[in-house]
């Protein structure tokens, strides 16, 4: 699979503060990549570097295998983007704003503006000045602007900010449709976990400027449904027994001295019986489920051990 976007050791420092620290990630063609992180984690700085608005101190950004810094203008033509809250010329209406950006972008297609406004559910005939728009309408207009030139990759920084629940759902469906039907690659940052959970194919978790984890949503979902957690007195021996006696290989030994078993074919009492028969003290044995939220929380606490 071709990497549409790749960063290698991307670093941005402001004085002694590292806003982004050695960030390396890959986004494949047609993939929806969810970029998760708390406020101030470095998501917007990363996106600004990806768009040439902020100069990295170290590291490289590659689009379609080409270095961004050496061919910035050509690469940007293939990108549609929203950075923070999209800004517009308040004295013009939505259509006129898009007309300005479409002309600057050199878009020859005459109905591109109408199409993108329709896609995001804004009225073409609305003559209201953008200064009178609600935040949600500005977000929709921002997405319409990002779609204007039929980009190959969309880079969206918190694009659902200010949208109401039905608007969020609509936009989520739109991004999924664009990725599936038009093979558009979407890189989307958010701090709303439920949003990313429903949208992304792959998730990167950024914390204090560091990419603490990257996980394929399919892998996460397969583990997400249920797992068995056991707490025992001897981790090494227990792990060996799981593999030899029960043929369980999909498990993780965690820093809190517990074992999580994702291979959920086994009866919980059977696991208990075999461990006890092998003279292992079992302090805890539960079945639980793991959501993206718990995964995220663990990742930023630094106790993830996958």
């Amino acid at each position, binding site marked *: 699979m071709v990497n549409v976007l790749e960063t290698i050791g991307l670093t941005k420092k402001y004085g002694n503060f590292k806003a982004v620290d050695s960030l390396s990630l890959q986004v494949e063609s047609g993939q929806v990549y969810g970029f998760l992180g708390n406020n101030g984690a470095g998501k917007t700085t990363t996106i600004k570097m990806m*768009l040439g608005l*902020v100069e990295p101190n170290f590291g490289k950004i590659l689009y379609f295998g080409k270095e961004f810094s050496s061919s*910035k203008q050509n690469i*940007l033509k293939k990108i549609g983007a929203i950075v923070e809250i999209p*800004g517009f010329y308040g004295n*013009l209406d939505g259509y006129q704003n898009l007309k*300005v950006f479409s002309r600057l972008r050199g878009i020859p297609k005459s109905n591109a503006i109408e199409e993108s406004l329709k896609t995001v559910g804004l009225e073409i005939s609305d003559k209201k000045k953008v200064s009178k728009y609600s935040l949600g309408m500005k977000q929709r207009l921002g997405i319409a602007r990002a779609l204007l030139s039929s980009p190959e990759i969309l880079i969206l920084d918190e694009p659902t900010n200010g949208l109401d629940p039905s608007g969020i759902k609509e936009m989520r469906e739109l991004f999924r449709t664009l990725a599936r039907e038009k093979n558009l690659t979407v890189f989307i940052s958010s701090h709303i976990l439920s949003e990313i959970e429903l949208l992304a194919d792959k998730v990167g978790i950024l914390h204090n400027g560091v990419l603490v984890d990257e996980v394929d949503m399919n892998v996460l979902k397969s583990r997400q449904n249920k797992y068995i957690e056991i707490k025992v007195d001897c981790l090494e021996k227990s792990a060996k027994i799981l593999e030899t006696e029960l043929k369980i290989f999909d498990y993780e030994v965690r820093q809190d001295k517990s074992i999580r078993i994702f291979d959920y074919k086994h009866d919980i009492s059977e696991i208990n019986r075999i461990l006890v028969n092998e003279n292992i003290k079992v302090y805890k044995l539960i079945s639980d489920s793991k959501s993206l939220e718990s995964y995220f929380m663990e990742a930023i606490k630094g106790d993830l051990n996958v």
Partner: protein
Amino acid sequence: MFDVILMEFKKLKRTTIVWLSVLGGVAAPLLNFMLYMYRKSNGYDAVFSDMVNQVNMFILLLLGLMLYSLVTAYTYSREYEEDTLKSVLTIPVGRTTLVISKLIVVIIWVFLLTLLSYVTTTILAIIGGFSGIDSASLFAAFKYFIKSFLYMLPLLTPVIFATLLFKKYIPAMVMSIVIATSNLMIMNSKYAEIFPWTIPLILTNPPDVREYPVYLSYVSLTATGIIFLILSVIYFRKRDL
């Protein structure tokens, strides 16, 4: 670059600044017209060429300086104030192209305001029955206004730099008010010949005796324009958003 310039004009649609600048453009002729009409009512002769000189002095030292600073600062600061710069640069429009295109728009705008001031001065002088109006004096006045316009151009670039530096138009406006006040103090000293902001008036109204060679005035004015333009481009290209 043509599209960028064209879109800069489109962005001005329905903005108050356009009407404000028109008001500013007619302010100097109107104020002087009122002054000359008052004098005329007291028995003094109102001569067209005198009014032209007076209007130009107002424009070069005070009103024009502030008005052109406002137009320049607005053109550059609005991308920051409306938060559109990030979108424009990722369109992508090159940073140097953007600075130069906006400068061209400002130059055209200032030129139109100069023409407006000239036309207003002429019409008011005709209405007021000023003496000395003929085709030769009208042409001389036109040349005078155009010269003033050209000498003012290098002084736009320090405003651009101040606006890009502070990302707002207010610091640039404060700067232009301070400079306009300084102009009034410096104008009657020998330093008026080398202080960039008084040079346009010195060059359009040469003093009888010069303290410094005339080339120094040209060097000072041109160097100010070029240095601040280069600084603006370098700074804008390097600056993170």
